[in-house]
Each structure stands twice: as C-alpha cells, then as structure tokens.
C-alpha cells in the first residue's frame, strides 16, 4: 500500500500556501494602494 504521509502533507501544504498566500497578498496590496493614495491625497 502507498505511504499516505507524503500525499496528506502535500495536500495540506498546497492548502496552506494558497489560502495564507492569498490573505497575505490582500494585505500587501492594501498597503500598496494606501501608499499611493497618501501621495495623491493632501
């Protein structure tokens, strides 16, 4: 029978990468927009 550990690990790692990665990107993108806004707005 195939060892299940690498499959379970791979699945959860991909899950973590996509979800946490997307949440991090949202925060980083917000900071970027806010920086640009602060340059335009008096």
């Amino acid at each position, binding site marked *: 029978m195939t060892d*299940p550990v690498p*499959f*379970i690990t791979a*699945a*959860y790692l991909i899950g973590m990468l996509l979800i946490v990665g997307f949440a991090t990107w*949202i*925060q980083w993108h917000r900071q970027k927009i806010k920086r640009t806004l602060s340059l335009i707005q008096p």
Partner: protein
Amino acid sequence: MKNYLIFAVLGAMLASWGWGIWGTPTDIHMGEVYRIIYLHVPCAMTAFFSSFLLFITSILALWRKDDVFQQYGKAIAEVGIIFTLLTLFTGSIWGYPTWGTYWTWDARLTTTLILAILYAGYLLLYASMSRGPQRAKVCAVLGIIIFADVPIIYKSVTWWRTLHQPPTLMRPGGSSMSGDMKSALVTNIIVMLLIALILIWERVRNLQLEQKLEELSYRAMR
C-alpha cells in the same frame, strides 16, 4: 476589519486541520489517506458556497445598478477560483493512492474543472471590460451560469457512473460517517466558510480603495 481577526481564523483553520489529521480515527476502507477529506470537502463546499454568493450578487447587480455588487462579484469569483483549484489539487492528490491516477475524465472531476474555468472566465471578462452597466450585465449573467453548474457537480455522482464516491455527509438516510469524523469535518467546513467570507470582505475593501484611487488620479489629470 482588524488583522487579529484574520490571524484568529487562520489559527482556527490550523487547529481544525490538526483535529482532522491527528484527532480522528482511521478510515476502515481507505486508511490514513482519507484525512485529506478535512481539507478537500471544506474547499469544495466553500467553492459551491462562493457560487451561491455570486448568484445573489449577480441578481442584485442586475436589479440595482450599484458598483459595489460588481466589486463583490469580483471578490467572490477570486475566492471561488482559489477554493475550486484547491478542491481539484487535493482531490487529485487523494486520487493517486486511492484510484491509482491523479486525473481521470470522471463526471465529478470534469464538472468541477468546468467550474474553475467559469470562475476564470468571469475574472477575465471583468478585467477585459471597462466599468459600467455593460460589464455589470455581462458579468451578472455569467455569475448566474456559474451557479447553475453547482447542482450538476453535486448530482454528477448519482447521474453518471463515476470513480468518485457518492455523498457521505449529506445523503438520504443520514451520514455514513462516524460521529468523531463528522464533527471534525463539519468544524473544518464552518472554519473554511468563515475564511472565505473574511477574504471576500477584505478583497472588497481593496477594490473600493482602488476605485477611490482611480477616481482621484482621473481628477488630478484633468
């Protein structure tokens, strides 16, 4: 929304994953590899839930001409495609030790792939059109079509002969899972839905800020 809420929900996600991986009994038929279910099923449920939200948003966008529904539509489609892709990836990883292949043109898998393509189509359409009633209308129609795919995905295992197992949680006559497994799975589904709602909310805030920036830049150039 404060950052600590995001951290709290991500912490709850890790804890509920831990419960599924280490705190539940081994499946008698599939062995340990079944533990991917605690990620795969919540992701699928969240992808379906996103399509329901997109349907509601699309109806509202057609009914009330407000930019906010377009922004919600985009945010929901982004979250929807992420969870649909995760469903496909985790299902594929589960498929190899269980069926002996990462991919097969099975009805459940194919209809889920179609859902991912439809979400991608929505985002491409949104990006390729300029802001206005035309984009609102076209995207709303596609949003309704996306929702129509979900009952087909759900019923695919009963309508066609497939490799994918039939529903175990929501099936006539009650769930076939043990109490421990069911509690862990339901908790994981609730946590994943919460994560999706927070991600949508946060993404909409960014889109609103972007719109504000766009309007200010336009005013500054005139």
